[in-house]
């Protein structure tokens, strides 16, 4: 194995461990603030995996949007909701055994598929600066989804105002 490949593997496993650890903390913490912090760690781990996969732009966007904006929003929402901060909430309910069983079955199925699939290596590396290419694709091939997203955001904005106004 060449050195860069070893580094890629090490990077991937470190980032995967961070992601999983954060996710575990998010679902098992009894304090909501801790759970939110766990989520932030998991999201940073995912950004790291994007870095390892050489998708730097997506990684930066992931940190900006998810770690920077959404997590802060979650923290604010928790802090502004009366009584939610101090109380310890149970992290499980009565259905956790069934949920664990279904999750394990799902994991087994995904593992089987991941191992049985003959993964194709990407032969062609996209040359040059990626971000202009991404922008061009968004305005040409993916113009319709792009416009649909803008409409979706407008609908969300109107909806948020309808729900929130006095």
């Amino acid at each position, binding site marked *: 194995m060449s050195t860069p490949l070893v580094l890629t593997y090490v990077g991937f496993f470190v980032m995967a461990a961070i992601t999983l650890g954060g996710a575990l903390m998010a679902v098992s913490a009894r304090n909501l603030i801790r759970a939110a912090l766990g989520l932030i760690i998991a999201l940073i781990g995912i950004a790291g995996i994007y870095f390892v996969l050489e998708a730097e732009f997506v990684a930066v966007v992931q940190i900006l949007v998810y770690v920077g904006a959404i997590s802060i929003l979650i923290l604010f929402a928790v802090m502004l909701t009366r009584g939610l901060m101090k109380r310890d909430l149970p992290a499980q309910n009565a259905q956790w055994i069934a949920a664990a069983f279904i999750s394990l079955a799902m994991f087994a*199925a*995904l593992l*089987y*598929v991941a191992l*049985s*699939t003959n993964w*194709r290596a990407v032969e062609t590396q996209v040359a040059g600066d990626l971000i202009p290419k991404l922008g*061009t694709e968004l*305005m*040409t*091939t*993916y*113009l*319709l*989804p792009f416009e*649909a*997203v803008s*409409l*979706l955001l*407008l*609908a*969300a904005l*109107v*909806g948020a*105002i*309808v*729900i929130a106004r006095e």
Partner: protein
Amino acid sequence: MSLSVPDLNFRVIAPALIVALTALIVLLAELVTPAPRKRWLGVLGLIGLLIAAGATVGLWGAPASAFGGMVVADNFGLFLTLVILLGAALSILLALDFVRAHRVDQGEYYVLVLFAVVGMILMATATDLIVIFLALELLSLPLYILAAFKRADARSLEAGLKYFLLGAFSSAFFLYGIAFIFGGTGTTNLMKIADALAKNPRNDLLLVGAGLLLVGFAFKVALVPFHWWTPDVYDGAPTAVTAFMSVGVKAAAFGAFFRAFLVALPAFAFDWRIVLAALAVLTMTLGNVAALLQSNVKRMLAYSSIAHAGYILIALVAMGASGLSSALFYLLAYTLTNLGAFGAVIALSDGERERLEIRDWGGAARQYPFIAAMFAIFMLSLAGFPPLAGFTGKFLIFSAAVETGWAWLAVIGVLNSLVSAYFYLRPIVQMYMSEPVPGWDRIRVAPLVALALVLALIGVIALGLYPTPAIVMATGGFLR
């Protein structure tokens, strides 16, 4: 640098575009509309829907695709577009007085309905999983808000929140499925997935992807066992919203469901039809049996809509041209009938007080003979009595199933229809055989609601007596 969009053709998405434009106009007009005149915004929305319907008819018969195969205007999609526009127009008619009676008379109501319609039309005409997903979100998001639109009512808020949480959950399944399909085939375009499958029919990644996609669709069209949200959301949401979402979401989501499975997956080595057949049996049976036990009209109609999703699923199992056209016809018949049924609940409610319990309907036939008669006809159509639209629809679906060798599924469907007759007849018996319930005798039926009911009634009877033109229209099929 020049940017060129592959087959840029706005004509193909004209119906969705017109509705989107209408939504924006209504949104701006809301700023300058004084509070007592908000209902004119609804009228503006109705005009936009009519123009969009005109554009849809103009596209008829000349299948075309646009934006690099992201969206098509084939007769299958256009038929569903017309069904969606019809459903939206009738539910706006139902809502014009309803929102005033419930003191939620705001222009945003119509804006959100129109946004949802854009999503529904895109979903029914999209041929790319990315567009289908975004359309699904675009139709769901306004509906979450609309379900919670009556913010003074805790049950409405609960319905909105429940719908939002479970909807977001199901969207995640859907998206995960798309990711697996992309991993397995390298594309999100339905036709290209079919090509990839034809070369390599055994594809485990695609199997997982299709399974997750199925879960996402099953949530949206409320198939058992992914139906738990339906009764609570249908019951808690304002009745005009329930009427709209019970028909619009079904038409749009079944459209994409059929297209995804029949265009992309026919060459699949794994026979997914047996899974769908099992889901259909579960959905019909559980929906009908649970509806038997309800004493609340809205909950009964919620379980009934679950059962109807099961019947429509039989058409997907049958595949082929007859399965496809029978599903389209059924969705049209179901849209008219279900809107009529919810419309009757709205028509005979007293301000904010609604006849939610079946016993409240006692003697309604004596006090309001016309509305009661129409409600009875809608109930009979849902149960599948001839010569109404519901009968023709069921007949077409069951015969499509028999033709393609799924006779046992058709038999279970017929047995289920028999069971369903019991709970559809219960409100009728109550209206015609019981003594009037005191306190329900001073209702002024809103003329616009009565108009919507009459229009739906004409459709239900016409489709039952002379279904041929609609069946011919429904046989257009996909542009592959």
